[in-house]
């Protein structure tokens, strides 16, 4: 019977092409608007570290001013300062721990014609790859002494290795970064979390680093972070050493704590550390630190902004209007063909059969609307990518899940829209349509 209803629906849609097109358009536009914002919100809410969500923690310390906290939801700065990072790296409680920040500079290959280009770098302690689960194609991370001593070793991303060495195994080869020779020790696989959960201070959806450098290089290059550096008191910085010793925060810090015991121990450790610093006159605010799981970290950093949520609500309201529109048009269309329903009733169709037949017709409109809606969504997302000038490239795209969601939403909405008109038509008294007026 279902096949019969589908055939009838298609025939019915063909006989009123303009009205059908109007309804398909209404559903398509509504679904297009809703799916555009839903896709964005869905893509922005992804958590690339979901598989380690119960063991990874982004760490915050409250070393801010005595009279005011940092302007974030939990009133702690997103980053910590250099000297605290160096102290904390000595802890042997976490399975892995990472102190890192963004940097960059001209990159080239000694014996190559390729012109030097400006590469995004991540200066990090060696656990980065293990903690964030970044697999290697060739080689591996640098030795642990590279985190405290200047060791000129570098890890390349797959794309960088492709560019400089045509994808060959480049371990042991030399590249030039910021005017100094570095030995390649590893090449990572393609790794591009979006949003960039490990680094939410420098554009949530930007490209991940192209090269990775050890944490022991700061003094050799007098490295200043290419991210945010914030301070709360006037500190006289007259040498690089005072910069490193200052209260300026510019280092992102993550730990991996595999067991509840480890977590407990680490909390105690941090508490002890802050107490000790307080005794030396630092950390003027009440004792406070933060350990946020990746999922919490994404929320705390408001990766999905108010504007995104607002657009989402507006587009759902939009879809609602389109639905009301579809209800009105469906009602008109079904009532126009009420006499046919009357004949079918006389010939033995029960109310349910009439109801189902018309609901199937609504569903067909929904299916068509969904397909056009996917097209509209794709077009709108392309427009958004252009309007956002690259800032949303990794999120403004539909995956298969979102495409099926679009179809599902369209069919669901059209069935909802068809519910009343189909019920109404199945209830009308057939006899009034059978008598020739």
């Amino acid at each position, binding site marked *: 019977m279902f096949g019969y209803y589908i055939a009838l629906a298609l*025939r019915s849609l063909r006989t009123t092409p303009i009205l059908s097109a109007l309804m398909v358009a209404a559903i398509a536009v509504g679904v297009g608007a809703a799916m555009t914002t839903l896709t964005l919100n869905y893509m922005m809410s992804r958590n690339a570290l979901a598989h380690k969500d119960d063991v990874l923690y982004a760490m915050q310390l409250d070393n801010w001013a005595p009279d005011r906290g940092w302007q974030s939801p939990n009133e702690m700065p997103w980053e910590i300062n250099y000297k605290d990072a160096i102290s904390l790296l000595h802890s042997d409680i976490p399975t892995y721990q990472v102190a890192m920040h963004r940097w960059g500079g001209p990159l080239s290959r000694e014996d190559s014609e390729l012109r030097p280009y400006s590469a995004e770098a991540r200066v990090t302690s060696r656990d980065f790859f293990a903690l964030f689960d970044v697999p290697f194609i060739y080689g591996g991370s640098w030795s642990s002494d590279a985190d405290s001593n200047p060791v000129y070793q570098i890890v390349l991303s797959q794309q960088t290795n492709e560019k400089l060495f045509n994808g060959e195994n480049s371990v042991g080869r030399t590249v030039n970064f910021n005017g100094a020779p570095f030995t390649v020790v590893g090449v990572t696989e393609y790794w591009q979390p979006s949003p960039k959960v490990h680094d939410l201070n420098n554009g949530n959806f930007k490209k991940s680093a192209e090269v990775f450098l050890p944490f022991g290089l700061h003094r050799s290059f007098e490295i200043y972070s290419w991210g945010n550096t914030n301070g709360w008191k006037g500190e006289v910085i007259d040498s690089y050493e005072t910069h490193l010793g200052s209260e300026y925060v510019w280092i992102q810090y993550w730990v991996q704590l595999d067991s509840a015991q480890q977590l407990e121990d680490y909390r105690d450790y941090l508490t002890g550390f802050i107490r000790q610093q307080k005794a030396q006159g630092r950390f003027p605010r009440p004792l406070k630190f933060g350990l946020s799981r990746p999922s919490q970290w994404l929320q705390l950093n408001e990766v999905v902004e108010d504007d995104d949520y607002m657009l989402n609500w507006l587009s759902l309201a939009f879809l609602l209007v389109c639905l009301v529109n579809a209800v009105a048009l469906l009602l008109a269309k079904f009532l126009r063909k009420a006499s046919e329903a009357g*004949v079918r009733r*006389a*010939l033995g*169709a029960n109310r349910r059969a009439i109801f189902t037949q018309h609901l199937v017709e609504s569903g067909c409109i929904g299916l068509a609307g969904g397909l056009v809606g996917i097209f509209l969504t794709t077009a709108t997302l392309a427009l958004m990518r252009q309007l956002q000038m690259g800032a949303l490239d990794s999120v403004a795209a539909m995956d298969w899940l979102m495409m099926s969601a679009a179809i599902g939403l369209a069919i669901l909405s059209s069935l909802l829209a068809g519910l009343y008109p189909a019920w109404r038509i199945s209830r009308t008294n057939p*006899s009034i349509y059978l*008598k020739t007026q």
Partner: protein
Amino acid sequence: MLKMHKVRKSFRTDTIETHALRDFNLEVKEGEFIAVTGPSGSGKTTFLNIAGLLEAHSGGQYLLDGDDVSGLNDRQRSRLRNEKIGFIFQGFNLIPDLNLFDNIDVPLRYRGFKASERRRRIDKVLQQVGLAARAKYLPSQLSGGQQQRIAIARALAGEPRFLLADEPTGNLDSLMARQVMELLELVNDWGTTIVMVTHDPDLARRAERNIQIVDGQVADLEYHANPAALSA
């Protein structure tokens, strides 16, 4: 076959209650061909709608094939309508978007027959009404008489026991009307009970029995000997 005892039907608007049928008694026997006549507004159509299970009666008893239909729900009524009753209307009421084959297919679909069975029946009734060659035509491509023959074919496809006709020749010229009438008589000869509402006394005279409805009641029962029926 059909028995109505003290059947009542009233319509109510905000202010007035009108009785379309009151104390309506009628019995139709298996194989009969009955003509129902009466002035406009007398309740002929209401009688037909109730007999055809298109409307429910407000009171009294209606037995179809010996079963009381009063308490049936929509599903059961629709099923009875589909299996036991065929309709023929003055305005033919073919579905304009469907070709002749698909029009006849409609009641068979609701019956739940397999495709092969539906095809067999459709081919058969198309033969019977003499329009087998035009199965793919749309209703609008046919003359009025041909349309009514298709409507009869559609009514017959389900092999109903009982055919209800509402002014079946009302929209036809006399030649076509005669052809349609002859077809109905043929159908009656095959054993189908027919109740036909008409205001044409010539047509009514061709039926075995005439009933007149006046003011929602059967006025008088006048037996009318049909020579053809007698000889059969």
